[in-house]
Structure formats: structure tokens, C-alpha cells
């Protein structure tokens, strides 16, 4: 399970809407509990460095990646994963997502079926299994106490 609080969610939605119709992308930071539950506390927005069609692809530059790792070390957070948006597409990882996916990372996808229809925006999160296939990771708003 990955917990994304509404304030963090709003940051993700803002980035996805600002970047629409291009794909946005960035990093998720937080901590991992003993039971494997991940809690996202902050995000880092980075540029989509894909040369070419950014409406269907994203790429994060290696320098931005190194910055993210350093950012995690500086705040004593864990780099939990990557988020990106799927403008006008469901929040399901594509083959492009899978091929380039890293183990361990949560891949949070923000689907924006229609920019004008805020209610249609939704999130799903995915993790690679040992067969390099994506499995869905449940998203929750708050940590249950």
C-alpha cells in the first residue's frame, strides 16, 4: 500500500494539469514502514526531457535523477518512486513504462481523461514483480491508525 495524502495529491494534480497535454514527471519521497507500507511526504517536480512527442512519452535526465537521490539523502527520506501523467489515457502502465521500469520503485500514474473534467482525474500505483511485470499497489489517502 502507498499512502498519498490529499495535499500531496494536489501537488501531483497541479503538475499534471500545468503540463497537459504533455506528460509530467517527477519523484516521490517519504518512508517505508516495516510492513512495507509506503508514505509519500513530498515530491520533486522535474522537466520532461524527452526530445520529441512529450504528449505520449516522458524521460527524466540523469542529472535530475542524481539530484533526486541527493535530495532524499539530505532529508533522510527514501526515494520511493516516480510519478508521471497519462493525458487522455487510463492510469495503466504501458509497455514503454514497463520496459524502462526499475525494481523497488512505486510508479504512480495520474490519468487525466479530460482537462476540463477535474472529477475524472484519478491515480493508480504500480510495482514491478520478480517477473518484471507490473502489479497494482493500492493507494490510500491517509494512514489508518
Amino acid at each position, binding site marked *: 500500500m502507498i499512502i498519498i495524502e490529499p495535499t500531496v495529491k494536489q501537488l501531483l494534480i497541479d503538475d499534471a494539469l500545468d503540463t497537459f497535454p504533455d506528460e509530467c514527471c517527477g519523484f516521490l519521497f517519504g518512508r517505508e514502514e516495516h510492513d512495507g507500507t509506503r508514505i509519500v511526504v513530498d515530491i520533486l517536480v522535474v522537466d520532461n526531457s524527452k526530445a520529441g512527442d512529450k504528449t505520449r512519452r516522458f524521460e527524466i535526465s540523469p542529472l535530475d535523477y*542524481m539530484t533526486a537521490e541527493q535530495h532524499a539523502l539530505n532529508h533522510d527520506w527514501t526515494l520511493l518512486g516516480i510519478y508521471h501523467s497519462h493525458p487522455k489515457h487510463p492510469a495503466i502502465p504501458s509497455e514503454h513504462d514497463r520496459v*524502462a521500469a526499475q525494481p523497488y*520503485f512505486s510508479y504512480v500514474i495520474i490519468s487525466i481523461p479530460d482537462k476540463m473534467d477535474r472529477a475524472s482525474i484519478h491515480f493508480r500505483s504500480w510495482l514491478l514483480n520478480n517477473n518484471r511485470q507490473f502489479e497494482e499497489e493500492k493507494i490510500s489517502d491517509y494512514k489508518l491508525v
Partner: protein
Amino acid sequence: MATVIIPTPLRKFTNNTARLQVGAGTIHSTVEELTRNFPDLRKHLLDEGGKIRSYVNIFIGNDDIRDLQHEKTPVKDDTVISIVPAIAGGTGGAASAFSKEELARYNRHIIIPGFGLEAQQKLKSAKVLVIGSGGLGSPVLLYLAAAGVGTIGIVDFDVVDDSNLQRQVLFGVNEIGKPKVEAARRRLETLNPYIRLNIYNTHLNSQNALDILKEYDVIADGTDNFPTRYLVNDASVLLGKPNVYASIFQFEGQVSVFNYRNANGELGPNYRDLYPTPPPPGLVPSCAEGGVLGVLPGIIGSLQALEVIKVITGVGETLSGRFYIFDALDFQSRTFTIRRREDNPINGKNPTITALIDYEQFCGMRAVEEAPLKEITAKQLYDWQVRGEKFQLIDVREPHEFDIVNIGGELIPLGTVSNNSDRIARDQNVVIHCKMGGRSAKAIRELQEKFGFTNLYNLKGGILSYIDEVQPELTKY
């Protein structure tokens, strides 16, 4: 000692250590040392050839080693090395995005480990041409449509006949007399509304084959005759398309995958590696002549659909380079190894076939030139009736159709015409009709070939045309 910063996703292979110390040397020696100390890192950093993977970036400070001296880049004691995974993705092609309904529909595929959404997406993006929508085509089309193959083409020139229904499970009695491709499309549309169906109500021949086949990624050959089989094989080879082949006869079925290029780029054999030339005409009878057990195409066609799905998705090992034979009587399966031949006339060392040829002639079938049938229109038939012309009217439909509506013809169902040839007049013109004209044409050919009739006329458009043109008050069905 130099420092290596391990990215978060790989830390589970380094005992959760983010920074490792390594000796000075070069990037090559650093990677050697890392993979020696942490063997699980190896497959993530290096490919099968021992080279650094293309999606792994190695940086010294802020510089990519690709801009320095690659693996020979020196590593000093104060060097900080970062391993940086490439981060990328995206929605991909618009065509492969699934709706909520499709995800629900294909759930039992998506949850199979090793198949998953990835294979389902490949199915959706795939274009498969199924040649022949009969015994083999029925299960192939049903399963490929059900599985979610995004675009399916269907080639068949035939109309549905009652004698097809013993094995061609795509069709029902309501489709008798209708073109098979249209009946198939209607059935498949009700099965899966999320796919695209293209129909070709035509004889596949040397003139149209390349044009039709070139639009597709995979060809499924379920034809019942040698000329078309060689035509499909040669066209697939010329276009570089994999051809999933199946055939059936009486109690035996065969399956293979021809002209398939595997992941290593190696091309497998094709039908001409197995049979460079066809058997003499008449030696191997067709199903229409020799018969076939109705369930057999269900078994073999399902295996053919399986191989099509494997070719598309890359899941498992296809039958490329192997030839599978199933004997239904003794329940024996055998699989032979087949190889490419240097003397293959289409893609051996010295190919002699560089374009499609006349396959009827190649298979020795030109000798029996098909003369065009004599036809009569509904209006002409009505004229004959009005003028009181002497002729015999024969209805080759089935009794239940005859009961729905008839125009006073003598009922001799298609399957029984040969046994009833003595009931057909030789001293006057004979008009033969069915529902739409397909079965009556078959009856006429059969009677002409076997008994030498020359006085037979086919009613163009069948009884339906007669009702439209002459007696609209009659029941249409």
C-alpha cells in the same frame, strides 16, 4: 578508495548500502569489483555479453562516461561514481490504451503471470488475417476475437451451406446461403465489440494476395486446397510475415508456424521447406471429397489460434521449425523437426520464385477449366412461366427452408443431388435454385462434372431474388 553511489532501486542487492567504497582503476574494474562482491547486481548492470546495459548510465561527478572514455574512464581515489538508471515511459500508442470495459473483459488474461497487460496490449495492437472461415477458421476466429486481437481480417468467397454446420461452429441455420465472411462478422461482433473486423468476400489469388496480406502482421492459413496453401505461403514469405498453418483431413490434423523470425533474428522454415512441390492433383482429396470428423477442426483450429497468440505475444515457444501431427483415432501426437532447405525455390540459396505465380496451374488444376455457368434471372424465369415454356424447376434447399416458402420447385437438397440425378430432366431446360444462388451453382457443377448435364440454368440470386422481382407477397427468410 573511490565512492560508488548506488541508486535506491538497486540497494536491495547491496545490503541496503547507498555508498560503497571501491579501489582505484577504471570503470571496467569498478564494475567488476561491484558485481564480484554483489553478484545479484550483475544482471541489472550488465547485459548477456558482459557490457554495461544501455539503460544504465554511469556518471563521474556530473559527466556521463559515454562523454569520457567509456569503460576505460579512469577511477581515482577521490572519484565519486553514480549509477543512474534511465527513467522513462509514457502512454505509448493511442491504439493500445484499454477502456475500463476492455480491462474487465480481458481480466483472466491480464492476471496470468508471464502474460499480463503486456501480452494483452500486443494482442490489441496486432492485425491477423484469417484465410478461410470454415472448419478451421471458425474456432480460430472465435478464439482470436474473444482473446482481443485488435484487428482481424477474414478472407472467404464461399456461402454458408447446411453441410458446413457439422463443423463450422461460427454459423447457424439462419446464415445458410449467406456469404461466410458476412455471417462470420455478425457472429464475431456479438462476441467482442472492442475489435475491428475487415472482410474480404473474394477468392484469394495471385492478383490480390499481396495487397490483402500486406496489411497484416500475422497470417493464419486455414485453407482446404493446395493452390491457396502455396499462394498463402509464397505471399507470406515475399512479404516477410509469419504464417500459422493448420490443415485437417478425415481423422488427422497438422499445425506449424512458418516463416517466423525468432527473437534472435533467425528465420524458420516455410511450407516449401516441407513440401517443395504439391502432390499430383486428386491424390490428396479435400474435406468436401474425403470428409472430416466435425470435432477435429475444433481441436486443430484451437491449436492454430494458440500459435497465433504465441507469435503475437512472444509468450512461450512457437511451433516454428516443428511440425505437429494429431491423429484423433489413436490419440497420438507427433512433433517433427523441420529445417530450412538450401534448394527452397522461394527463399533458399538460389530462389527461382520472386513473385507470385499461377498456383492453379502449379498444382496441376488448370486441366479442368471451369466453364461459366448458364444463368437465368428471376424476370427471365417469370417470362418462361408466363409463356408456358417447358422446363423443370429444381429447389436444392433443405426441407425446412422449403416449408417456409417455395415457388413450386421439385425439392432435391444439395447433399442428395447426385443420388437423385435420374430425377433431373435431360430433354428440356432445367432451372436450379436455392436461397441466394450459391448452393444451386454447386449442384450444377456437381451434376455437370459427374453426369455430363448441359441443360442446367442457375437462378441468379435464388428464391430471394424471385420474391423481390416477381412475387413480393411471399415470405422472405
